[in-house]
C-alpha cells in the first residue's frame, strides 16, 4: 500500500540472490510487487463509476423528481462511493473498505481542486478572449470610447500602465522593508522576535479594504494629498510588507546553519555573513517571495478602490489625479449594463490573469530550487574551476 519504495525494487532481481544456491522451497516464493495502481484496482474503480452513473441516471431522471446537472453529479458521486465500498468489501475484504473509500475521496478532491483552478482560468479566457482579439484593446485608452462603443474602439492601456506603476511603487517600498523584517526574525531573533512574527502572520491576512481605509485616513484625510496612484501604491505596500516578510523568513530559515558557522569561523562579522553568505544562498527563494508578493499586489482591488479612482484617461503621474488599475477597471466595467463594457471587463481580467501567471511562472522557475542548489551553468563553472586547479597542481608537481 505504501509508495515509499519505488516499484522497480520489487522487480529487479538482485545479483546476490541469483548467484546463491537456490533451495527448492525458495523457488516457489512469489515476490510482492509494490504498486499503488493495479489492474484489478483500476477495474474496480472504473466498474464502480460506470455502475454509479447508470444507477444514478435511473434514479435521478426516472424515479426521483429532480433536475439539474450539478445535483446529478453530486448524487452520482455519492452512489459511486457506495458502490466502490461494496466492491472493495467483496474483493479485498471488509477491513479495506474505509481505506479504499477514503483514498477515492482523496483522489477525487485533488481532481476537484485542479478542476476548479482550470475552470477559473478557462472561463476567464473564454469570456475575455473576444476583447483581446482587437489590438486596440492594448494600445488605446477608454478616453477614445464610450460604454456603448463596440470593442473595436478603446482599450485598457491606462489601466495596464496604472497597475504596473502602482505595483512598482509597492515593490520598491515593501521589498526592502519586508526583507529587513525577515532578516531580523531569522538572524537577530531574541525576545522581540516572537511578537513580531505573530504580528506578521496576523497581518498577512489583514482584510484588503482595511489597507485602503488606512491609507485613505492617513494620506488623504490627514496629510491632505489627493487620491492618486501613489496613495494606491502605498495601500498595496501595506498589504505586501507582511507577505514578503513572512515568505522571505521561511526562505532564510532554509539556509543551512553550517554555512553561517563556517563564515563566522573564518572571522567574518555578522553583516558580512548575511551579505556574502546568507543572502546569496537564499537568493532564488527571496526572488520567489518577492515575485509572488508582486503577483499578489497587482491583483488587489479593495485597497485601490478607496485610494484611487476610475478614470478613462492615461495618467502617468502617480502624484496627481486618479490613476486606474486593472482590478479597478474590471470592478467598474462589470457594473455597466452594456455587453461591450462587460466584455472589456473580462478582457481586462484575462490580461490580469496573464500577468499573474507570468509572474507566477517566473517565481517558480527561479525559485523552484532549494537554497544552495546550483543551476547547470554554476555546476559547469565549478567543474571547470576544479579541472583548472587540478591541471595547475599537476604542472606544479611535474615542475
Amino acid at each position: 500500500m505504501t509508495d515509499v519504495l519505488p516499484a522497480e525494487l520489487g522487480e529487479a532481481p538482485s545479483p546476490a540472490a541469483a548467484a546463491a544456491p537456490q533451495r527448492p522451497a525458495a523457488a516457489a516464493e512469489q515476490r510482492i510487487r509494490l504498486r499503488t495502481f493495479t489492474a484489478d484496482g483500476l477495474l474496480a474503480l472504473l466498474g464502480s463509476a460506470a455502475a454509479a452513473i447508470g444507477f444514478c441516471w435511473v434514479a435521478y431522471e426516472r424515479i426521483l423528481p429532480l433536475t439539474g446537472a450539478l445535483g446529478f453529479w453530486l448524487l452520482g458521486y455519492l452512489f459511486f462511493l457506495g458502490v466502490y465500498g461494496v466492491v472493495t468489501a467483496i474483493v479485498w475484504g471488509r477491513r479495506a473498505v474505509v481505506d479504499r473509500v477514503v483514498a477515492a475521496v482523496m483522489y477525487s478532491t485533488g481532481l476537484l481542486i485542479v478542476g476548479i483552478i482550470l475552470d477559473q482560468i478557462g472561463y476567464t479566457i473564454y469570456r475575455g478572449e473576444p476583447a483581446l482579439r482587437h489590438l486596440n484593446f492594448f494600445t488605446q485608452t477608454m478616453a477614445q470610447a464610450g460604454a456603448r462603443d463596440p470593442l473595436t474602439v478603446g482599450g485598457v492601456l491606462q489601466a495596464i500602465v496604472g497597475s504596473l506603476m502602482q505595483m512598482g511603487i509597492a515593490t520598491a517600498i515593501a521589498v526592502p522593508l519586508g526583507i529587513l523584517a525577515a532578516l531580523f526574525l531569522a538572524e537577530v531573533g531574541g525576545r522581540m522576535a516572537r511578537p513580531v512574527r505573530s504580528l506578521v502572520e496576523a497581518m498577512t491576512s489583514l482584510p484588503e479594504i482595511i489597507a485602503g481605509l488606512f491609507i485613505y485616513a492617513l494620506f488623504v484625510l490627514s496629510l491632505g494629498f489627493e487620491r492618486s496612484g501613489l496613495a494606491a501604491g502605498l495601500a498595496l505596500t501595506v498589504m505586501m510588507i507582511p507577505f514578503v516578510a513572512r515568505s522571505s523568513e521561511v526562505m532564510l530559515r532554509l539556509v543551512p546553519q553550517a554555512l553561517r558557522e563556517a563564515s563566522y569561523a573564518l572571522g567574518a562579522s555578522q553583516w558580512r555573513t548575511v551579505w556574502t553568505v546568507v543572502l546569496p544562498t537564499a537568493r532564488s527563494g527571496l526572488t520567489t517571495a518577492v515575485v509572488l508578493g508582486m503577483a499578489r499586489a497587482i491583483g488587489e482591488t479593495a485597497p485601490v478602490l478607496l485610494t484611487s479612482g476610475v478614470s478613462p484617461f492615461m495618467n502617468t503621474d502617480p502624484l496627481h489625479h486618479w490613476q486606474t488599475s486593472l482590478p479597478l477597471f474590471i470592478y467598474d466595467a462589470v457594473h455597466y449594463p452594456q455587453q461591450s463594457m462587460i466584455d472589456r471587463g473580462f478582457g481586462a481580467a484575462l490580461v490580469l490573469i496573464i500577468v499573474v501567471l507570468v509572474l507566477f511562472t517566473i517565481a517558480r522557475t527561479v525559485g523552484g530550487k532549494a537554497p544552495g542548489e546550483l543551476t547547470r551553468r554554476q555546476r559547469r563553472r565549478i567543474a571547470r574551476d576544479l579541472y583548472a586547479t587540478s591541471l595547475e597542481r599537476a604542472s606544479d608537481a611535474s615542475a
Partner: protein
Amino acid sequence: MADSTPTQPLTAVLPAVADPDTPRIIVAPVTAADRVFRGLLRGGGIAVFVITGLIALFLVTRSWSSFRLAGWHFLTTFEWLPGTRHFGIGSILVNGIIIAVIALLIAVPIALVTALFIAEYAPVPLRRALIALVDLMAAIPSIVYALWGVFFLQSRIIGLGRWISDHLGAVRVPLKVDNDVQSSFTSSPFLAGLVVSLMVIPIVTSISREVFSQTPQGEREAAYALGSSRWGMIRTVVLPYGRGGMIGAIMLGFGRAMGETIAVSLIISPVLYINTHVLQHGGYSIASLIALRYQDSTPQVISALMAAGLVLFVVTLAVNAAAGVIVTRSRSGLQTAD
C-alpha cells in the same frame, strides 16, 4: 600539534593550573558595523509594529466622532443612517459572519482533504505540481473569482438552491426561501459564501499541508508496523499531530473570509436586517459596506465607515493572532526556535 601526537592523552595538553571543569567564557566581539547592522534589522522588525500601530491609531482617531455619537449602540443598531444617532453594524456584522461561516463550511472539508491528499496520497512527482497549483489558486485575484461567481455560477446555482429549499426547507428553516421566484435565489449569502470559499481553500490547504508533512517519519512507520492501513495511519498519527495546525488554519481562513471585500460586494444585495435564510437574496458584510458606501463621502459617513473598519480590523487581527499562536505551538517549536 594534536595531529603530530595523536597517542598523547588529552589531559597532558591542558595546562595544569586550569580547573578542567570550568567552561571558558566565550565573548564574541561585536564590531561597530555589526551594531549598526543589527539596529537596522531591528528597525525592520519594529516597522511592522509601527504600521500596525498606525493603522489602529488612524482608524481610532478618524472614527472617534462616530463612536461618541452612537456609543455602544454602534455594535447593536441595525439602521445605517450616519449623521443621525441611529447607525451601527448590528445586522452587518452578523450577516458578515453568516457568509464567513458558509464559506468555511464549504472550504474546510475540501481544503483539509486536499492537504491530506497532497501530503499523503499524491504520487511524489505530482506533489510539487499540486503545491504550485494551490499557490496559484491563492494568487488568482479575488476579482476573477467574483466575476466567475456573478456571471457563471449565479444562474447555474438557482436549480440547486430551489431543490434544497423545496425539499429541505420544511425541515431546516434557514434553508427555506420565502418567495419562490428565480430572483429570490440570486445575490444570496450562500452564493457569496461559495465564492469566498474558493479564496479560503488555498490558505487552509497550504498551512495544514505544511503541518501534516512535518509528522515524524518514525511514528508513521510505527503505525504501519502495527499493521495499520494508510487511512488508519493518517487517523491515528497524522491527524492528531496536525490538530493544532488545522485549528489555526481554519481560524486564519475565517479571518480571510470576514475580510473578503470585492466578491461579496459584487454578489450580495445589501440589506439591513439579519438574513438567516441563506439561500435567499440579501446580506452584507463590513468590508462590502465600506466598498459600497465610501462614495457617499460626507465626513459623518466616512467617520462611520472608519468605525466599522476599526471593528473589522480588531476582530480579524484578534482571530489571526490567536490562529498564529496556535499554529506556532503545534509545530512544537520546530521551525520557530529563536
